């Protein structure tokens, strides 16, 4: 039965492809899910024509399992279409309509070919199943496309949120903002260690001003990062500890061990400069009020090697 039905479908797809394509595109354009702002008739016709051509080949092979190798072309086309639509912001049902809207024109033709009566129903069923499967397949791929977008954004967010800044030759700063969980610590640790290798820095300042809460897990992560940096030959200073966080750390009984901690990034930087044998001093008396509008005060010139 299934094979007969496939043969019938094959006939239909071959007989009047022009009209079928026309009907199908009409159905798509008239459906409430049509998005004139995202796509147009021309594009839709192109997609539909390609799909019909691929579908014809697949149906010709006579296999009704859409996961079979003869359906690879159709699947690839749907993959591409769904992923594109997912990225363009179509909804899943708008995407699946592409396939489901093919039902109407195909069924009309099946009806004509098979005549009326109970038998016609049995002709319809396998085709119905086939188109349903294809439609569901688009939805699945659409979902996967969306998920990929989300994952990519997550990764980007993670990389964006963990910049390693060079404060001075040999001094790195790692301003942490947001909650520290295991995955993020991993990224933080990796990027910090890599930068230590690249820049040959001997001091790293981890600034936790932007970390809202510190619990035992976060503290553990911080200590791990410090330990790893130490193994690479760099000393770590933790700065930006707010009063509440200091209280929490003590109440939780977290032992920060021998790690140097400072209240502000400036204090930490001062320590770092001292370690490197550098000092900050003024090169001249503070400029008078009038001079403040001078093009550059060049604050970096104030720092000179001791």
């Amino acid at each position, binding site marked *: 039965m299934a094979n007969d039905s496939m043969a019938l479908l094959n006939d239909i797809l071959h007989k009047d492809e022009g009209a079928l394509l026309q009907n199908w595109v009409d159905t798509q354009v008239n459906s409430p899910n049509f998005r004139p702002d995202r796509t147009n008739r021309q594009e839709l016709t192109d997609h539909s024509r390609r799909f019909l051509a691929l579908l014809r080949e697949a149906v010709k092979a006579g296999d009704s399992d859409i996961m079979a190798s003869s359906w690879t072309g159709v699947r690839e086309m749907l993959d591409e279409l769904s992923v594109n639509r997912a990225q363009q912001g179509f909804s899943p049902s708008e995407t699946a309509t592409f396939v489901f809207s093919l039902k109407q024109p195909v069924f009309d033709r099946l009806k004509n070919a098979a005549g009326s009566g109970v038998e016609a129903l049995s002709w319809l069923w396998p085709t119905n199943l086939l188109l349903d499967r294809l439609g569901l397949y688009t939805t699945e791929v659409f979902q996967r496309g969306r998920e990929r977008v989300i994952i990519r954004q997550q990764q980007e967010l993670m990389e964006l949120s963990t910049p390693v800044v060079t404060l001075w030759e040999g001094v790195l700063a790692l301003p942490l903002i947001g909650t520290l969980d295991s995955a993020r610590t*991993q990224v933080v*640790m*990796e990027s910090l*260690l*890599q930068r*230590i*290798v690249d820049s*040959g820095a*001997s001091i790293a300042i981890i600034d936790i001003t932007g970390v809202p809460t510190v619990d035992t897990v976060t503290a553990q992560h911080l200590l*791990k990062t410090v*330990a*790893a*940096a*130490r*193994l*690479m*030959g*760099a000393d770590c200073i933790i700065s930006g500890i707010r009063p509440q966080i200091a209280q929490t750390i003590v109440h939780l009984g977290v032992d920060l061990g021998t790690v140097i901690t400072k209240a502000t990034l400036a204090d930490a930087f001062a320590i770092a400069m001292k370690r490197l044998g550098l000092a900050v001093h003024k090169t001249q008396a503070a400029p008078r009020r009038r001079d403040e509008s001078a093009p550059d005060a060049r604050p970096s010139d104030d720092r000179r090697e001791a």
Partner: protein
Amino acid sequence: MGEYLLVTIQVDMHDRLAMSLQDDLTSKIVSVHARGVLIDISALEMVDSFIGRMFGDIAAMSRVLDAETVVVGMRPAVAITLVELGLSLTGVRTALNIERGMELLRNLTESRGDDAGSTR
């Protein structure tokens, strides 16, 4: 290298090799009266807990034999692995590369020499 020993680990360490390194190193320290040991592990890509502990052991042994140990050139991946294994090598001094390690060793042995001189 003068009064310092330089150990470069070029191959992946396995346990037997690690043990023989310990033996060789300790006997070498004694025979050349080394004041410092520099272990370069920049070629080491994989560590396990045993190797990690071995570094700690070597440092402790050298200390007993009056030599300072500095581990240099650890790769980021190796550092992360060791920390995840819970081995932060507290007794071992580390440096980024051989140059820095040498500097550190020199400082260490000098300051120690000064201390010895002042107590005399």
